[in-house]
């Protein structure tokens, strides 16, 4: 394994039982790698299979075939280790209604077996960084969507995982909170975290992602850095490029794909430089 490849997905397939089709292929031979210090974007329309990939990486679902490794731990056979290596932020900002922000993060910190000496200073640090102090005792039911999302991020960061998974995390957030979320993601990337970021918003991809894979109907249509994709498909407008690929996918036209290579030198430099960030 390349030392920086924190997520390795190889020929991943996932089939669901389906009332109409008998079996529905949610993922069909998906392969990609994501490295430390980069934001790897999974871009695709609703139902493309992004959430399924991320749920498999988070060990919530089992793959039908293929392999997926996080921090070199297999998601099927070494699920316990994988769970310690990831932080998962889902799109539904799921937090407990009858727990305060502080209690919620503390609870997950304890589940990750953090001792009091480590847990409370880290909580203080995260709460300060994410500007959560003012609502630390507010119960989940009374929080705004933005507050809930911050709590979700704090919960995912509490054990300082090397890999962070954001599943359409900006869905339903207002512009201010969405911008704050993007800033947090970039900050985490700068600390050398590997971030898998799923979205269907082009602008977010352009702002955040170092590399991106375009997922459609359970397959990766193409992947690479944004400039690479633009060059390969002669299309500088990323939104147009996205539609072009989707239409080619629908029509069954072969798409020129690049092999999944290492991240850009710029990203590598960031990784090697960043080890002591504010929210590590």
């Amino acid at each position, binding site marked *: 394994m390349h030392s920086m490849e924190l997520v390795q997905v190889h020929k991943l397939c996932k089939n669901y039982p389906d009332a*109409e089709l008998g079996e529905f292929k949610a993922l069909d031979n998906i392969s990609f790698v994501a490295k430390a210090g980069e934001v790897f974007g999974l871009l695709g329309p609703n139902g493309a299979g992004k959430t399924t990939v991320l749920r498999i990486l*988070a*060990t*919530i679902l089992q793959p039908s075939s293929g392999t997926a490794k996080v921090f070199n731990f297999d998601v099927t056979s070494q699920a316990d280790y994988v769970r310690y290596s990831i932080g998962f932020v*889902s799109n539904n900002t*799921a937090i407990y209604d009858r*727990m305060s922000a502080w209690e919620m993060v503390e609870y997950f910190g304890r589940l*990750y077996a953090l001792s009091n000496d480590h847990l409370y200073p880290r909580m203080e640090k995260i709460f300060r960084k994410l500007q959560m102090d003012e609502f630390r005792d507010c119960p989940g039911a009374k929080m705004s969507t933005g507050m809930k999302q911050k709590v979700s991020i704090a919960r995912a960061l509490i054990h300082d995982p090397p890999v962070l998974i954001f599943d359409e995390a900006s869905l339903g957030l207002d512009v201010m909170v969405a911008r704050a979320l993007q800033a947090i993601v970039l900050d985490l990337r700068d600390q050398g975290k590997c971030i898998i970021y799923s979205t269907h918003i082009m602008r977010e991809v352009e702002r955040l992602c170092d590399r991106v894979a375009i997922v459609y109907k359970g397959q990766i249509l193409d992947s690479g850095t944004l400039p690479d994709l633009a060059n390969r498909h002669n299309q500088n407008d990323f939104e147009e490029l996205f539609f072009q690929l989707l239409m080619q996918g629908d029509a069954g036209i072969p798409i020129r794909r690049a092999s999944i290579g290492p991240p850009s030198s710029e990203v590598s430099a960031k990784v090697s430089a960043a080890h002591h960030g504010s929210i590590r």
Partner: protein
Amino acid sequence: MNWSHIKLIFHREVRDQLRDRRTMFTICVLPILLYPLMGMVMLQVAQFHREQHVSLGIFGYENWPASQPLVADEDQSQIHWKQLTITEEISQTLNQLRISENQKGSEAAGTLSNNFVVDAKLAEKLLKNVQSDAIIWIPKGYDGTFTSTQLVVLSNQRWERSQLAVRLLAEKLDKWHQTSVRDRLAATTLGVSVLDGPGIKHVDVSVPESKRALIWTKILPFVMLVWALTGAFYPAIDLCAGEKERGTLETLLCSPVRRKEIVWGKLLTVMCFSVCTAMLNLFSMHFTTAIVMTQFSSMGATEMVQSLGPLPIHSMGWLLLLVIPISAMFSALALAVASLARSTKEGQYYLMPLLLIGMPLVMLPMIPGVTLTPGTSVVPVTGAVLMSRAMMDGEYTLALLHFPTVATITVLCCLLSVRWAVRQFESESVMFRDSERSSVSQWIRNVWRHRDETPSVNESIFCGLIILICLFFGRLSLGGMALEWDSIVKSTVVIQIGVILGPALIMAAILTRSIPKSFRLTRPRVMDVAVTVMMAFCLHPTYVVVATAISNEYKLGEQTTSMLQQFDSIIGNTSIWYVLLVLALLPAVCEELVFRGFLFAGLMRNRGHVRAIILTAVLFGLSHGVLQQTITASIMGLILGWLAYKTGGVACTIVFHFVHNSISMLLATSSHHKQSIPQFLSWALEIEDGRLCYSSAWCTLSVGIAITLVAWFATRNTIDKQTKQL
């Protein structure tokens, strides 16, 4: 398992539930308020009941013997007598009441014939007109002897007050009659003493405490179990379906906690609330009853107070001990059921089926005469309730005797329920299933389009249930046990081919692509068949011993025993080959094709061989209808299922089943065929009451050989290719 995770989840869930006002209201506040409120209502009703009086209209009181008046002043408090005068209108109505043609209009108002027939509508109208709950009509010529003519009492039994009026009047007339008879006898030479019955002095040796315990031991376990189930269900819905709905379960699933740990953490929470609910209800009910009874005592209801007074403290202790294992079982069941639901609303729909399934087990101990025996101790819940009742009654030796069985069954049920709950949590289709549109036509199209070579798990279970329902109605329509050989043949053929094999055959043709694979028709290994035959011979003595023990424990009714004897007599007088064909071969083929064939093939999917063995055994047992046969057939079903798994098809199980049935038939008919024991078998068989039976030597030896043969099969590799394919 990481117990610190379980502890963390338990603490969080308990704190979360304690912060939920709805849960707290149902679990804590409601029990505390409910019984005092009910007690208050009861006291009010009792007061109301005491003051209730009825209005009784009386026509023709002038015809009543003046020497012994019926209406006395002191009666006014209970019966309000309304002496009515017969007006012209009432006279007409009274005449119209008698609709018997030969009498109509022939008699004057106030007289009565024995052919009196009442026109109900007119009578109701009359009751309303005179504003009475009931009317007593004393016809002319009535002399109080009840022989001259009849008194007529008009009432409307649809009205509760009318029912009460009739009851009070009957008591009044009965009392009047007794006094009248005594007065008349006193005037004769016989005297009043002839009315005295045999002198009985009843001495009740029970102490009031134990009498009170008797009633409470029937009521309280029932109340406690219902509340234990209710107390388990609502937190279970919130902890499973609620978490799914809110999306927090997904967050927990990607944390380092294993699913088993999540289940245990949640289970302990649910159990904690279930125990609390049951105990709070118990205390609240008991405390309220004690106070209400004291109140009743002051009202003069001493008999009721004696029978329902406060429960002895040690009895409460035994009840509290019972609540823990029962709550554990119900909690695990509730958790597994609740995890099936996608939302709290959907979860609530599952409460009623769970209550309906649990209710018979809770009601069984309440049936008069049901006590703790080896038979009842193996019934889940029932055994535990009966054991706690035995403890409450002070029958400690009996309770201790059955404690190992009850404890084993209860722990086993708890573990199975927990295992089921864990499996639900591990199942992706349960945890992440989305809302599905229900369309029957689409479903049928899909079932047809996606037929497999063998049935699916659901199809197998559905087929098993269809067969059980068809058997129930089939047996009812055939009218019980046939007592003629032709009827036996007819009913056996109809049941075996039409009811058992038929549905499976139809489903295999429609729902699967390969009938041979669906029925697991494979060529058996010769050695397997040979060993199977030997195993059937060697296991039969053990089967007979077990069946006899079960029959002794669960006694057959006299009628059933007599019918079985007649059945033996009929088959004894028929050609043995014909009997073996109809009663040994036909059931062996049909039942094995269905239970170890079609149903087994579906249930075997996804490495579900343990599920297949257990479920087919239970369904096979239930298909036999009679309780005693159900138990023995289920045990036999386990052996046949295991054999079917090891041999990979139904051929060996058909052979085993046929040999087993044949031996049973030969032994059952032995007394009629007057068979003598061949010399070479004299060591294995003996004659008892004219019937062939196994010698003790063979019984012992056969167990050893059977174990060896089972071990031989156990060491053989399973040759079920289907398992590998699926």
